[in-house]
């Protein structure tokens, strides 16, 4: 931003990283507004603290406190923005009978689903490789996993991962075609 930067403490960087992260899931114009506004806020807080002669560590603590206390509101804001965008897209797709089917889940939820799917896949595959043939079926040792449960986790995670990956590719494609 015009060569102007806020004091680059680790805390400030972490808070700005968080802002950059969650705003990725909001429409671009709204997201940029939020990022610029937060940058200005943090800059002003540092400037005020410098005028008052407060130590940088005290400012950092306050900034972290403000960021942490606002986490729930940040996520709620992103969800609301996404729902608003989805409603707008639904209206558009209703107007056009040949519009593609829209996956209206929040991108944030898709990301979480992808992480869950990867964990599920890793767990179930490890389970099969490490204990395959011994823990399942014929060998009834205590705490052994049920082969059916592991297979369900494997198939469910695979489906979830395919859906998440498809969503990701669709989003990337739509960004590139804009």
């Amino acid at each position, binding site marked *: *931003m*015009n060569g*102007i930067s*806020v004091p680059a403490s680790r805390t400030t960087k972490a*808070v700005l990283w968080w*802002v950059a992260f969650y705003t990725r899931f909001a429409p671009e114009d709204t997201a940029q*507004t*939020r990022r*610029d*506004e*937060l*940058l*200005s*806020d943090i*800059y*002003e*807080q540092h*400037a*005020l603290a410098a005028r008052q002669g407060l130590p940088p560590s005290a400012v950092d603590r*306050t900034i972290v*406190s*403000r*960021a*942490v*206390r*606002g*986490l*729930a*509101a*940040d996520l*709620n*804001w992103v969800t609301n923005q996404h729902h608003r965008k989805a409603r707008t897209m639904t209206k558009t797709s209703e107007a056009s009978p040949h519009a593609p089917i829209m996956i209206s889940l929040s991108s944030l939820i898709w990301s979480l689903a992808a992480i869950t799917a990867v964990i599920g896949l890793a767990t179930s595959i490890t389970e099969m490789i490490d204990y395959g043939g011994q823990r399942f079926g014929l060998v009834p040792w205590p705490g052994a996993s049920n082969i059916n449960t592991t297979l369900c986790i494997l198939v469910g995670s695979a489906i979830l991962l395919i859906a998440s990956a498809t969503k990701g590719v669709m989003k990337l494609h739509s960004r590139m075609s804009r």
Partner: protein
Amino acid sequence: MSRRKDGVLLPLEVRILELAEQWEAKPEPMYGFSLAAALSEDGGKTLTAHGTLYKALSRMTEAGYLTTEWEDPALAETERRPRRRLYRISADGRAAFSKARTEATSALLPRPVLRPVQP
């Protein structure tokens, strides 16, 4: 999370409207951090959380209670700082604040108690 009805204001939003109305008399416009600082003066509270403050401002702007614009980039450039997003109370905001204040006042008034007529 339950959804709020349109037009229902939270105490924070009422306070923001009150401050925005008072700000009209000041030479310097209202922006995010100045508002957070003003809110923290209410009983020595800590600065309002980023998410809470900007979510409230976003909702109030979308509801039409506040108008917003980015300040002149040249001014920010001169002062070597990021641009501020300025807020002003709108006519709808004044009406909403007036309504909220009336409701708060009437809620404090003692309610008349109906007593049975003595024969």
